[in-house]
């Protein structure tokens, strides 16, 4: 790509960027949120018909004005925001556009499902390809998306933050696939905010800042400090301050929570000012537990008490008004109002609080929105642009700000820093610390182990839908949490869970097998 540019109304997102990617190379693309990484790669995958500059593939100059043209030239891209059709089966999504048909144009279902199954297997997913995409969780959808792109047999593969929703195991599996593809001579562009990943997989790194190319380094010459310096213009170390939380009385008490096929007999207590981590492999039921706990999803058995008052199962609106809120892990599906201005997204959870006798108060809304917009350093031309025009990381900041503004008693965070750059992650962590200092209790779900370990005062470990134990601050390390999530950790204090809740004994790790995986 030579001198490629792309302008959105109000932003020059990509500014005369040169980028060369060789066959058989993994080329990492890094940069802060809104730097233009996704836009640059969307140009390559034929999203826009109005970019400037020259693109050459295999020595040949090409125009890529539609996804079909890009596909023809062998470009395959896994987008940051997933683009699967939710009501359709996985198989049809994976093989969309190339459904195996017989002589009369009828779809050969057997062949379809068989081929789809093979692709799923290749990316390490043991899912029934007949299932609808709407029923699977984001990390599975991410892998399905990868399978879909690979099934087109691209010669240039673009992966835009593919690991942001994947677990460690899935990431490792993805890296094996990438290495395999590299050996077969594919050119691979890999976008990520995770430095360790980049050092593990990439051969060269290109850094973008404000839409401009800040330079390309081979992985041998790159160091984390150098890269961060190039991205942010200053050095920031990933470092978690020692915690001195003031932990108070119990705010939230969950007793014997059960949702059949998802989680079983979970009891715990959460105290004022505390950050309680929830660890577990993907599929262990953490998200499901959180969603049922606050009333977004059904709860079959058990009670949730907030300040001693029972939270009615299935009544999320009531839970929010009482200060029990949940930050969703899937900002596109049920997080943001993509077609509304950022300002309205920021105050969307405040409609009740910002109204007197049914009348709303636009001035108050605007003031709060403006304050949040500046304090979280959202990168956008103004708070009045649509949330959908923001870069992925900035969307995440808006989503978080929406809940921070409600000053909740209990804040459940499900992957709060997904897709967020190093600087923004730091800001988000500071915002969370600020809230806990004011007494908010946080339940933190994160597949980012350094974050989970660095931010939590205690960690509960879930496995196959059950709570198997609890780890105190001094026991916490990435290795220990990982072992525990895999069921290989001897909990020092298995009884604390029980004693914390007062009632409801939690069964120890022994009785896991009976529970079928969801």
């Amino acid at each position, binding site marked *: 790509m030579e001198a490629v540019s792309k302008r959105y109304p109000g932003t020059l997102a990509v500014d005369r960027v040169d980028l060369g990617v060789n066959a058989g190379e993994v080329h990492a693309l890094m940069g802060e949120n809104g730097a233009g990484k996704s836009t640059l790669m969307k140009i390559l995958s034929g999203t826009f018909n109005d970019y400037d500059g020259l693109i050459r593939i295999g020595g040949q100059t090409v125009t890529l004005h539609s996804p079909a043209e890009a596909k023809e030239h062998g470009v395959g891209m896994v987008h940051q925001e997933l683009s699967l059709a939710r009501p359709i089966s996985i198989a049809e999504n994976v093989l969309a556009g190339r459904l195996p048909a017989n002589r009369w144009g009828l779809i050969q279902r057997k062949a379809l499902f068989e081929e789809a199954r093979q692709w799923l297997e290749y990316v390490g997913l043991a899912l029934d390809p007949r299932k609808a995409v709407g029923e699977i969780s984001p990390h599975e959808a991410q892998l399905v998306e990868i399978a879909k792109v690979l099934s087109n047999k691209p010669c240039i593969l673009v992966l835009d933050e593919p690991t942001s929703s994947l677990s460690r195991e899935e990431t490792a599996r993805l890296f094996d696939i990438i290495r395999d593809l590299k050996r077969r001579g594919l050119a691979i562009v890999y976008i990520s905010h995770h430095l360790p990943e980049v050092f593990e997989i990439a051969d060269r790194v290109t850094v973008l800042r404000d839409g401009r190319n800040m330079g390309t380094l081979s992985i041998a010459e790159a160091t984390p400090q150098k890269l961060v310096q190039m991205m942010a213009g200053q050095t920031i170390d990933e470092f978690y301050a020692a915690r001195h939380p003031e932990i108070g009385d119990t705010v939230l008490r969950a007793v014997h929570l059960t949702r059949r096929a998802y989680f079983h007999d979970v009891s715990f207590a959460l105290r004022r000012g505390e950050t309680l981590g929830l660890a577990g492999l993907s599929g262990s039921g953490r998200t499901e537990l959180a969603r049922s706990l606050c009333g977004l999803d059904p709860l079959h058995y058990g009670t949730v008490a907030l300040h001693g008052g029972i939270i009615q199962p299935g009544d999320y609106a009531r839970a929010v008004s009482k200060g029990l809120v949940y930050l969703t892990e899937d900002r596109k599906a049920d997080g943001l109002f993509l077609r509304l201005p950022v300002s309205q997204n920021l105050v969307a959870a405040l*409609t009740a609080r910002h109204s007197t006798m049914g*009348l709303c108060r636009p001035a108050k809304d*605007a003031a709060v929105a403006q304050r949040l917009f500046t304090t979280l350093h959202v990168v956008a031309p103004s708070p009045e642009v649509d949330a959908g025009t923001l870069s992925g990381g900035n969307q995440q900041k808006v989503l978080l700000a929406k809940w921070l503004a409600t000053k909740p008693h209990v804040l459940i965070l499900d992957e709060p820093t997904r897709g967020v750059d190093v600087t923004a992650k730091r800001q988000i962590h500071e915002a969370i610390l600020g809230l806990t200092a004011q007494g908010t209790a946080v339940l933190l779900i994160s597949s980012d182990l350094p974050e989970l370990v660095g931010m939590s005062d205690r960690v509960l470990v879930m496995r196959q839908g059950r709570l198997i134990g609890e780890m105190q601050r001094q026991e916490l390390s990435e290795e220990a949490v990982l072992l525990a999530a895999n069921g290989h950790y001897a909990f020092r204090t298995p009884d604390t869970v029980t004693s914390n809740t007062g009632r409801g004994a939690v069964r120890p790790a022994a009785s896991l097998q009976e529970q079928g995986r969801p």
Partner: protein
Amino acid sequence: MNTQTTSSSKRSAARTALETAGIYAVAATLLVAGVLASPDFLTAENLLSILSGVALLGMVACGMAFITYSGNMADLSLPTTMAFSGIIAVASLSLGIVPALLLGVLAGLAIGAMNGLVVGKLNANPILWTLAVAFFMEGFMRFTWSNNQLYPEIEPGTPGAAFIGIFRLRTGPVPLIVLVMLALFAVAHLVMTRTRFGRESRLVGSSRAAARSSGIRVSRVVFFNFLAAAFAASVAGIFLTSMNKLGVFYLGQGYDFKAVTAVVIGGVMLSGGRGHIPGVFGGVLVIGLLTNIMTFLGITAFRQNIVTGLVFIAVVGFQQYQLRARGKDYA
């Protein structure tokens, strides 16, 4: 900080004004075209008759706007709601004029409440569900009144005569129906821009899932949107019945499509969450002007329907094109 705040709300106000300006520009063009078509066009009398001509449509469109805005596309049961309100009002005239009108409106609200419950709580597809309700209500009305038309008594001094009179009431030269329409538009505008309900309708219309996980009671919001639409439709239905001097199941036919057309050319996105009431009023005016000019030109009613249909197709196509041109691949 404060200046920033006002400037950003000013900016969104400016955007609103700009979006509405389009439809009024079309209305102005039509006015000019009307003057060219006939010298009698620009008389106060004709302009008032245009307004009274669209008054009932205006009321229905005003209600329909709530449905579209909250992301439920269209309520296809509004025509039968109109007819039903009229029939119930006529049938209960023996109780006196005021109870009859109240019962008529209540009958309409009952349909709205049912729609609101089913779509809001049970997540039924609004188009399919209201289509089914329209079908059912038509059959129900035919069966109950065994295909008979209901004529109110027209002896002077009876409630029947009063009922027939309400369509023809005027204050000075201005018909009551025009005033009622304007009042409905004014109230609807305030509700949408100034109330929590209006705000929440917008959020629900933009994304039901995101609204739910922002702690908004989506089913309640949807319920009241259907109720608002049914209210506007039953008021219009009672006037329509009064105008026709009879209550019968087919009154109101065609109002659903025309109302959606007015709403959509007024700039309310079919996908929900975008648009505003002044635009809808502009859309109603444009339809009124178009009809009036075509009548002046001697175009028959059936051909006029063709034109309305074409306008609808053109506008929806244009909205889609605009979305794509702005690169709203996320929309």
